[in-house]
């Protein structure tokens, strides 16, 4: 596990900014976001919490370029979003590994030059050293999400978007995944937006937590706790979680 915290020489670190200004998004008659503003600094770890239907997933789909806004501007690294951007990677709720491709082939799904070696390195980063030749079906749920994380990070994205990727995992595996993500994020410094239902998860990982309610930011709070954060709630974290929960 310790190897993954080391940054190899020559690795690009750093992230891109995300900016939404006056963004609206509606699906038919229902408007999910209206006049929505959000700025995420380069390298910032933002957690978005809120009830289902509050616009969290819409926010992520707009930032990834999967969906276009009905109005307003979405910018990545200062440039307006026009479709899918290779500098932005998305981790889904489910691992979405291709069952008929080996673990390494899944990580190197885009088949860029030197993908095999890059995939093996990325797998080592997520603690799955030497498992590249196996079929995804032999992996546990947590291991599958690790492979998905390796697949997202192999191309060195400037922005990582996470759509509740740990929601289906058991509590212990979830804590392992938190440590892993925290370590890789600190080593690489990409901008991260994490969608989650789990307020404790948000406080454990993020620099800043926003609460989305009915398409508006109901709370925007900085998490000024030193890293790595202890799993057992520190009183300040517990206080913060209470504040966030009250706003949800």
């Amino acid at each position, binding site marked *: 596990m310790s190897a993954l915290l080391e940054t190899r020489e020559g690795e690009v670190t750093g992230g891109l900014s995300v900016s939404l200004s006056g963004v609206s998004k509606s699906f038919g008659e229902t408007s999910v976001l209206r006049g929505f503003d959000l700025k995420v600094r380069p390298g910032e770890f933002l957690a978005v919490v809120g009830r289902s239907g509050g616009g969290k997933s819409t926010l992520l789909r707009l930032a*990834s370029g*999967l969906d276009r806004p009905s109005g307003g501007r979405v910018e990545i690294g200062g440039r307006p979003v026009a479709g*899918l951007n*290779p500098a932005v*990677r*998305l981790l*889904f709720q*489910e691992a*979405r590994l*291709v*069952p*008929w*491709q080996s673990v390494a082939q899944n990580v190197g*799904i*885009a*088949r860029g030059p030197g993908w095999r070696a890059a995939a093996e390195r990325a797998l080592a980063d997520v603690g799955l050293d030497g498992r590249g030749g196996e*079929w*995804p*079906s*032999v*992996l*546990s749920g947590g*291991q599958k999400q690790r492979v998905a994380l390796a*697949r997202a990070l192999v191309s060195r994205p400037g922005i990582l978007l996470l759509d509740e990727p740990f929601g289906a995992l058991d509590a212990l595996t979830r804590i392992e995944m938190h440590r892993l993500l925290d370590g890789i994020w600190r080593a690489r410094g990409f901008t991260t937006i994490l969608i989650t239902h789990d307020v404790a998860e948000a406080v454990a990982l993020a620099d800043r937590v926003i609460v989305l309610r009915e398409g508006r930011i109901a709370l925007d709070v900085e998490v000024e706790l030193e890293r790595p954060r202890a799993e057992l709630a520190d009183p300040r974290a517990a206080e913060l979680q209470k504040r966030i929960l009250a706003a949800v």
Partner: protein
Amino acid sequence: MSIGALTGAGARHRVDLASVGRALAPWALPIVLLIAWEIAARAGLVNARLLPAPSAVALAGWRSLLDGTLVANVLASGQRALVGLAIGGGLGFVLGLATGLWRPAETLLDSTVQMVRNVPHLALIPLVILWFGIGETAKIFLVVLGVFFPIYINTFHGVRTVDRQLVEMAEVYGLDARARLWRIVLPGALPSILVGLRYALGLMWLTLIVAETISASSGLGYMTMNAREFFQTDVVILGILVYALLGKLADAATRAVERRALAWHPAWQPSGEESR
């Protein structure tokens, strides 16, 4: 399972005997039936002209092997079967892919295909004879019709039921349409396509038998119909056995393809490989 393995020591010996037993078990019933049939024929319990003994059938097989007629007829039938399968299966695959991937093609084609599918293709024999006479074309045309539908339907179904989430993932991760087709859609549809192929192989032989018994001057169907005219029951039974053997062979070939192409599938992986 060689003799050498059987002469191994102690525990291994028992294990090997058990596995040999398992391998032989499916053959036990056919062997018992054959022996009973032979005894009944020899004892005169059944009319040997209507049901000759297995040894007589084997002898007929040996004779036709020696004079070359068996091989010639098998080759003639096999060629028709394979040509029909290649044309009908190829068409079914391409059209199934087109309708599965592209909505306008589905709107245009699918309801017509579904309508034609419900006509039993053997009911077209009189029409086929009127159109093509009784030559090779007629027989191949019938095989084409027989294998087209199972492959078409299963390709269409396979393409349509590919996991949408995987396709979306592939888009997000920058795979172009061609890479998505080769790496996501086709492998995802393959289990269903192979089911279609196995089904088509069954229909292929069925169609061919019927076509060859109606009008042919070579092939297995011709061989058995000809033998019927001369009351050579042993040759008739031989023909039926060869059909069974060819059917089994075709099925085994598809299973081998499945085992290779679907190695990723949990159903094809050795058991006991639990997640770690």
